[in-house]
């Protein structure tokens, strides 16, 4: 079961630092790439909190359901994708490098 959930996660070589599949209340079911620098529970909790704020903002300000959240920083991105009404995927990625 755990292996099949793992296959949903993106591979780490495409500039992706870490990713996790988490429930909407922040319980991590599968994760890749976290280690000494990043705790997977923290990743899951962050994802769930972002999801909660995002879905509330969309529901109250725009209407309808939220599709995904992208938070952009100087050193990378955090993306929260909604898989179904109980599961989220949180991905932390490096900044885009444009090839010249």
């Amino acid at each position: 079961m755990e292996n099949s959930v793992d296959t949903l996660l993106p591979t780490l070589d495409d500039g992706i630092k870490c990713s996790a599949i988490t429930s909407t209340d922040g319980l991590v079911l599968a994760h890749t790439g976290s280690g000494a620098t990043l705790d997977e529970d923290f990743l899951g909790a962050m994802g769930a909190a972002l999801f909660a704020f995002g879905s509330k903002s969309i529901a109250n300000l725009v209407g309808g359901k939220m599709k995904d959240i992208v938070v952009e920083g100087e050193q990378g991105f955090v993306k929260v994708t909604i898989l179904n009404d109980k599961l989220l995927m949180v991905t932390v990625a490096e900044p885009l490098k444009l090839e010249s």
Partner: protein
Amino acid sequence: MQQATTSISAVQIAHNIEKRRLFIEKPQSQAHVTNMKDAPIYKTRPAVLQRAQNQDRTPLLKGEPVKEVKIILAGNVGSGKSTAIRAISEIPVIGSDAKAIERNALHNKESTTVSIEYGMAYLDNSNLHIYSTPGQRRFDFMADVLCKGAHGMVVMIDNGCRDPLNEMDYYLHQHGRFLQNYPGIIAITHFDDNNTDTSLLDYSTYLLKHGLACPVVSLDARNTLEIKQVLMNLLLQIGDFKTGKKRA
């Protein structure tokens, strides 16, 4: 067991106890209490109670501006933070619940708070902006965000959980710096369905042993009036803290 910060001096503890005794009085002796489990250690003074019950919105002094106060509700899972904020808030509570996945670990709750909950109430010429933090420990980072600019804190502990003293210790450790600098109250909930033998006296003794003289009160999170009493006590501490005046 984690140790709450013990760097506070004995003189400061004595001062804190003295300061807090002004609002909440301790019974003269514990001897007359037959059942320690439901013995309230601190009693709210009648004058404070009266101010908590006062529904009148005209300020006591004419032209006195309405104060804006930010209060944080912290505490363990299932201690009734969301219930309390829903019971007291005069506006619809803004918040985000998620369906609880680990229901066994979450007291069989249907849903659990994941980010924040916000409610507002008017009490004693003050607008109370009440923020509730999530109880699950993985969301501890939310509490750090919320504590910025707060004036006071209510730490709610579920007396029916496995080790309530340890839970309290965890929150005092987490918010130790805040509670040493700002007013706080420990509110113990679930006294009617508790499985433990922990009495209010145990909490109080434990707090004093670790150098924090926060008042300990029992609270029914569903009862609006009881929450108002707790908040009124906190408000008076905040007022004293801000002005530096001693109240009679």
